[in-house]
């Protein structure tokens, strides 16, 4: 275990070059409401068949971005290009986009089958084909038997799948999903995650998925676009976003992290109050920085002095102020002087070696010390 901790280096995170062409391109997209800037100069290129998550806290402009893409609100500035065609000024009904709304927005006065058939009727698909395609779409979302029901006679998860079938049946060139899972309970949400991802892969449909749930974004998507206050602050694979967040805000928002504020003393060395911590990369000497370390990347040793100091690890002594049992992990809050750090350790059956008041030693690899110049 020790060696693995020390020898672990940053894995290569540069993704293999993706040969797929760009399919949906947002260029300098902007939306202003009087003085409020809902979305500011957003640039984003989604490749053919790619699944991208728009991730960010409430009010950061995710829905607005989606609605501009769908044509439901006009952009204040910028361009929207789908498959090489500039659609910025096209009305929604001519954009060929499938949109699943947060509250599903099913037509309450139509049956499930009529809901799904609506888009096909608008496209003047022959009657005989409509029946067949509706049946296929309902089978795809495993609701083949529910065609005659009304939306209000379905559960939340079933309604969500009808909304998905209704958006997919028209074979849109782009699929947009606005927090489609947020109304479901945890168990169903997990099922639907896999299901949506599965269907998206099978149909190879270019998808933009809005969420404020980081687990959803990390587990489902090819790439994640993180938004903050109307701006796109980082675009990358789930791995990049989690392991190499570009801002303290992202480290904080995606996954959990311990935060300590300090000053760079020399290259790779940061002073946090009386403590000295190491990191792989640091800005210029004297810069005020924020350090962030993931709780589960920290090892906790019950007896101080048992771990040997090493140039590629950080070692801190502290006192346990709280222990929390969360089933699969134990959380320890450890007071290290300038702050309290949370550490996670998988639980095991048998007596627990650490309890409140114990003096412990914390150890983590220098690569797990994330350093930021912003302090949100």
């Amino acid at each position, binding site marked *: 275990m020790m060696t693995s901790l020390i020898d672990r280096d940053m894995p290569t995170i540069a993704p293999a070059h993706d040969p797929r062409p760009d399919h949906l391109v947002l260029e300098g997209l902007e939306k202003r409401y009087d003085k409020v800037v809902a979305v500011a100069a957003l640039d984003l290129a989604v490749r053919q068949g790619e699944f991208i998550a728009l991730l960010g806290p409430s009010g950061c402009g995710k829905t607005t971005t989606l609605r501009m893409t*769908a044509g*439901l609100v006009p952009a204040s500035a910028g361009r929207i290009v789908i498959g090489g065609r500039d659609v910025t000024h096209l009305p*929604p*009904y001519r954009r060929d986009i499938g*949109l699943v*709304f947060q509250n599903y*927005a099913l*037509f*309450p006065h139509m049956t499930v089958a009529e809901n799904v058939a609506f*888009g096909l009727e608008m496209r003047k698909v022959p009657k005989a084909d409509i029946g067949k395609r509706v049946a296929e779409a309902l089978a795809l979302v495993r609701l083949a038997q529910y065609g005659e029901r009304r939306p209000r006679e379905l559960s939340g998860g079933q309604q969500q799948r009808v909304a998905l079938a209704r958006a997919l049946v028209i074979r849109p060139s782009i699929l947009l999903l606005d927090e489609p899972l947020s109304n479901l309970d945890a168990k169903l949400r997990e099922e639907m995650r896999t299901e949506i991802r599965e269907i998206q892969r099978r149909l190879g449909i270019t998808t933009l998925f809005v969420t404020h749930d980081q687990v959803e974004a990390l587990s489902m998507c090819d790439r994640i676009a993180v938004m903050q206050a109307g701006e796109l602050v980082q675009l990358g694979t789930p791995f990049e976003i989690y392991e190499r967040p570009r801002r303290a805000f992202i480290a904080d928002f995606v996954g959990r992290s311990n935060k300590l504020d300090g000053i760079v003393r020399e290259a790779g060395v940061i002073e946090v109050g009386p403590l000295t911590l190491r990191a792989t990369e640091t800005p210029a000497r004297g810069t005020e920085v924020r350090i962030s370390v993931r709780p589960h990347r920290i090892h906790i040793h019950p007896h101080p002095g048992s771990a040997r100091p090493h140039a590629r690890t950080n070692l801190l002594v502290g006192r346990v102020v709280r222990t929390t049992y969360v089933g699969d992990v134990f959380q320890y809050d450890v007071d290290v002087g300038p702050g309290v750090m949370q550490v996670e350790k998988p639980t095991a059956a048998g007596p627990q070696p650490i309890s409140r008041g114990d003096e412990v030693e914390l150890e983590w690899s220098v690569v797990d010390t994330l350093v930021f110049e912003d302090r949100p």
Partner: protein
Amino acid sequence: MDIGRNSQGFTLLVGLLFAFLLAPVLFVFPISFSNDPFLAFPPQSWGFKYFAALPRNAVLMSAFRTSLALAATVTALSLALAVPAAYALVRLDFRGRDWLMSLFTAPLLLPSIVLGLAILLVFVRVDLLATYPGLVIAHLVVTLPYALRVIATALGTLPPAIEDAAATLGAPPFTVFRRVTLPMMMPGIVAASALSFLVSFDEVVISLFIVGPKLSTFPVEMFRYVETRTDPLIAAASVILIVATIGIVLVLERSIGVARALGKASQP
């Protein structure tokens, strides 16, 4: 004094209020089954004499037919105007929207007598007095605000996302309206129709200013009848009206729920 919602005092108060409001109406029922030649309570002889006499009164019957046709026309026109107006006021975003809404519903706040006088003054100049179109326009002034209010409320409770969904599925604006908005507004439209019809059929104050010797409405003729005669015929007519009105309201309540149509309930 504490008048809690569930307290007995409150129940008693409400009961008294209802009794006070309904007592005159309840008196009408026994009187309508009187065979006396004059209005008296309690009646000295009972029977269906005046119910039988009603169809033979040419003046009242002609006014009744006028009122029916008038109410139907006014209802149709109210809807034709209120539906697009409500749509524009609720769904389109333009300056002065709230101001316009207040303006359109302002007649609800004016005393009928003032409205009637104003309409009389205008109609004298444009030769609409004692004409059918004149009556229609005068009634529209009263029914339109009601219809607009009810339909705007119904539209306001519809989540716009449903219309957006139809648009993204390829429906141009008018198709969205016809296939999605209109069917979902139906309860509001039914309620607005019923309200317009009843308000028009019942309208007496404004009509009094406008009707002429050849063209009169049912409530106006009832009013004139009791000015000159005092037999229970008018009670029989009232009972028929009350029963018909209750019938309409019950049918509405059964089919859509009046409270919901008037906008009390939330989204479907």
